[in-house]
Structure formats: structure tokens, C-alpha cells
């Protein structure tokens, strides 16, 4: 790696050595990828969404591939915050990489309680507030589609923690900038977008939905143009850092988000296809910087000409 290049960025008070993060729900609790990559090379690890109590998740089938993407309706299956602290966090603490907990709840109070619990333990560097999961009956997207609800949750989380707070936004709204401005006003230190786009797929032989949950969240290359457009819109209306994600498969995709104004990016579905995707993308960004004589990643961030 070229030592003279500066890839470090600041995500609302969280300094990371490069802008490559893992998208929650696609990277397990980090350990799953340890056999494949040097986790310490990442900018940050965002773990699978955590709830107060363990969640079983949705009945199968939970995933189906569609054109240029996949639908999932996992239903936020997770071990719960207590088991995370006891069984998953010790491994993450051994790493030399910032770890961000993604949190979710069925009520605004859940978000507050989980933030309090996670703020009391060592080894976490920021919280990502998930107000955008499309696959659960309570909470999730309902909070992320309503600016007042979104503000209420962000205020409660901010009151409960001194960690930087990233709010993960849903694209399943009429105007994402309204929600972005609302959470910024409520004190969010950064926003990340987009979560998956609600979609559906049908088995015409059986005349049933491919997913037991009927609908699911679409991810993968199919959603990248939409994600990029939304990131660009949000960058132009808030002054807090924006973390871009949605269908990033290679360095060119990641660079598009950075040029559009994202301070960092998250890699999601690409991890499923190649568990080394994050590192390959990072290395190719470094090559791009070398080729284009870019010393500092900030020369690329928001460099869009239009």
C-alpha cells in the first residue's frame, strides 16, 4: 500500500483510516469474514442489526435472486444485545478497527435502552440507528418514513450515548431529503443510505411469492443508480457526512458514491458474492488514486462537476 496516500475520513467525530465500511446485515458479526480478509484493513465494521431481545427472524424462504440483485426478508434475526456483548464483542475488541453497532427497535424506547446498554461497554466506536428495515412488522421502516418519529428516535439515542450517531435511511419514501434534514436537526452526526428498496418476486408455476414474507428488500447492482441519486440529493441538503451504499460491487461503483459527495461507503451484497470484496475495492481505490495522482481521498469526495 502506498504510504503517502491519505484515505482517512471523519464520520461525524469517528475518524477512520479509509472510507470502506461493511454494510450491516451482510457481514455477520465480523468473525464470519476473518478467514478471508484482514479485518484490520477495513475503515470500519458495522455488525448485524441488534435488538433488545434476540429475534428469530422471518420464516423461509428468505431470499431470492432477481435481475441484477437479490430480495431478502431475513427479518432482523439477531442474537440480541446482551448475547452480542457477551459472545460477539470480545472477538471484535481484539481487532484494531472501529466497530459500529447497528441498532433497531420496535418502539422509540427500545432504541434508547439499547443505546444505553451499548454505551456502557468497551469496544464500540459509533452507533448506526436502523430506522429503515422493510422486513419487520413493528418499527423499522415505519420510523424512517416519518420525519417526526425519526427525530424522536434520534433525540432519544443522542441523549443515551456519547458515541457518534449515524442514522440509516430508507429509500422507500417520497422525498428522502425530508428525513435526512429531520435527523440532522435532531442531532445525528451522520447519515447512511440507502437501505434496501421494497420489492417482490412471484413463482408463476405455483402462483406464490418467492419469499414467505411476500415482500423483501432489494439490494445489489440493480439499485445502484437509485442509491447514487439519493446520496447526491442528500449531500446537497445536509451538512453532516453522508455514507453511501447500494449495489457497490467494485471500486468504480464506490468511487461514484465518493465523487457524488459521500464521505465513506458501505459494501453489502458484494460480500456475499466474494468475501474479499471490501479489500479488493479498497486496493482498487488506492490504485485509482495513484493513477490519477490523488494524494488525499478528499480530493475525490464531492468532486462531481455538473
Amino acid at each position, binding site marked *: 500500500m502506498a504510504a503517502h496516500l491519505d484515505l482517512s475520513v471523519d464520520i461525524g467525530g469517528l475518524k477512520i483510516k479509509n472510507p470502506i465500511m461493511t454494510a450491516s446485515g451482510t457481514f455477520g458479526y465480523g468473525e464470519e469474514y476473518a478467514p478471508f480478509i484482514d479485518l484490520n484493513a477495513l475503515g470500519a465494521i458495522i455488525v448485524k442489526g441488534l435488538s433488545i431481545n434476540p429475534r428469530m427472524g422471518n420464516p423461509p424462504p428468505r*431470499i431470492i435472486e432477481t435481475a441484477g440483485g437479490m430480495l431478502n426478508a431475513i427479518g432482523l*434475526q439477531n442474537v440480541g444485545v446482551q448475547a452480542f456483548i457477551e459472545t460477539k464483542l470480545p472477538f471484535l475488541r481484539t481487532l484494531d478497527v472501529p466497530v459500529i453497532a447497528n441498532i433497531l427497535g420496535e418502539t422509540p424506547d427500545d432504541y434508547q435502552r439499547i443505546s444505553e446498554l451499548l454505551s456502557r461497554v468497551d469496544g464500540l466506536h459509533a452507533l448506526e440507528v436502523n430506522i429503515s428495515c422493510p422486513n419487520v412488522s413493528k418499527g423499522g421502516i415505519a420510523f424512517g418514513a416519518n420525519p417526526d418519529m425519526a427525530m424522536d428516535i434520534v433525540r432519544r439515542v443522542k441523549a443515551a450515548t456519547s458515541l457518534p450517531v449515524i442514522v440509516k435511511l430508507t429509500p422507500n419514501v417520497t422525498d428522502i431529503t425530508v428525513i435526512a434534514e429531520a435527523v440532522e436537526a435532531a442531532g445525528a452526526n451522520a447519515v447512511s443510505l440507502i437501505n434496501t428498496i421494497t420489492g417482490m418476486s412471484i413463482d408463476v408455476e405455483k402462483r406464490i411469492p418467492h419469499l414467505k414474507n411476500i415482500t423483501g428488500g432489494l439490494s445489489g447492482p440493480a439499485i445502484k443508480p437509485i442509491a447514487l441519486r439519493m446520496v447526491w440529493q442528500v449531500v446537497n441538503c445536509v451538512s453532516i457526512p453522508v455514507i453511501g451504499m447500494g449495489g457497490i460491487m467494485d471500486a468504480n461503483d464506490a468511487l461514484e458514491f465518493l465523487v457524488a459527495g459521500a464521505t465513506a461507503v458501505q459494501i453489502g451484497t458484494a460480500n456475499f458474492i466474494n*468475501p474479499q470484496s471490501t479489500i479488493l475495492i479498497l486496493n482498487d481505490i488506492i490504485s485509482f488514486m495513484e493513477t490519477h495522482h490523488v494524494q488525499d481521498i478528499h480530493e475525490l469526495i464531492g468532486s462531481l462537476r455538473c
Partner: protein
Amino acid sequence: MTKILNLDSGTIIENQEIAKDHFVMSVLLTSYLDTALPGQFIMVRKQGVKDPLLRRPLSLYGFFQTEAGTVLEFLYRVLGKGTLALSRLVAGDTVDILGPLGKPFELIEARPHIILLAGGIGAAPLSYFLEYLAKGLDRYGENSQRAEMRRIIFYFGAASAAALVGLPQIQRFCPDVRVATDDGSTGFSGTVTELLRRDLPEFDPEKTSLYSCGPTAMIKSLSQLMQTSSIPCYVSMEERMACGIGACLGCSIKVRRESSGWAYSQVCTDGPVFNIKNLQWE
């Protein structure tokens, strides 16, 4: 045994349609691979393409070392666009390989009578297991002390005689193959689990173990049949997968838990081989 996670590429040696919609694919790996056990699977994808997007899990049908390197064999049925794309690959094409993944069939050495029960394409991993047993190997790939005491009975069921794909290979390694077809075109007329039900009194429950792979309906009826039996029974399960390494949580199935009734387990990392008594049916 240490867990081996291998991210590699391979060159297709052969990809031949041996029956309608059924292919045998042999892949020469770029790197040497030490072991790949029966019941384990590989995530396969054509290199350099974005569509289909995801890898496809294929169970191992064969594994051997050649002078040119390690060769993996797969017997698969074309079911959707992923397997259709694989079926169109030709010798010389390159594939991405992730694996071997998952838990293999657990051989119980103290039980020398081994029943293998396959439904349709479920014969693929059991055919490899059979070959493995016939070679006298133990669960770690070493020569077994007890191999000579083994008696293997292979039950194979399908819709019709034509759908008994891979039967000649199975007959090569097992003198006692018992066939069932739904349409009665060959062997026992009915399901393979009905055939096993008929034969079950013949087996000593203290000396026998059973391994199975097939459609969910077959596994479900086998589960009912084995409820009253003390023969240990292990089944290889199938679900759609995105990652194969326990991260996406897409391949969940219901498994019994002592504390909370049941919970979802991942077919990729907790399985694909499960004790049939642990499966929770709707």
C-alpha cells in the same frame, strides 16, 4: 479437524448432460485442496459475470487428486437461472470456487450397517459418500479399521426410472441398491420411504445408521418414519443461499432447541447435515 475455507478458481474439464436437465461437471482447481468430505458443498459461480449475481451451492459428487491437481465433481439439476448458466459452461471455462463449506455426514464407526437413502438429485452427495465408504475411509479421510465390517444398503427413489440419475455409478460401488419409483417403471412402486418402511425390521437398530438427502417432502416422511426408530438418522438439507458462510442468514430452517422450543439454524454453517430428530416441522 481444522476448518478449511478455500477461496479459489478452477477450470472446467467436463460439463456433460448425463440425463435430461442433469449435468456432471468436473473442475480442476487452481490450488491444491487437501480434503472435501461427503455432505460438504461448494459455492460455484462463473468467473467474471454479473448475471447471475450469486454463487450457487452445489454438493460434492466427487473429489480426487490427479497429476494436474485437485478435481471436484458435481452432479446437479438445472432448476433456475443459476444452474442454467452453469450448465452452459464448457471445458476450459473458469469458475470461482468457495469451499468446501458446511458440516459433512458424520460417520458412526460403531455402526457398521449403513443405510443411504436418496431422493432424485439428492443422490449426488450420497453417491460421493458411498464411494468414500466403499474405499474404506473413515470420517476424516483416513483408512478405517472397521471398513471390512461395513454393510451398505443404498435406497434410491425418483419419479420414474429415467429420473434415477447416477444409478450406474451407485451400483458400481454398492451391491445392494434398492430402487423405488413413483410410477412403478422400475423397482418398488411407491416412494423410497415406503420401501424403507417395509424393510426396516430387517436392520438391527444397534448396528445401523442412516444418511439421507432428497426433496423436503421425502425428508418429512422419513422424519415421521424414524420417530419410532432408535437408528440415528442424518439428513442433508437444502435452502437458497447467498453467501454460504453464515453471514446472510438467508438459508434458515427450523431446528429444535431444548430451552426455547425451536430456533432458526443456518443450513450453510450449522448444516447442511442435521440430525433428523432435531428438525422442527410446521
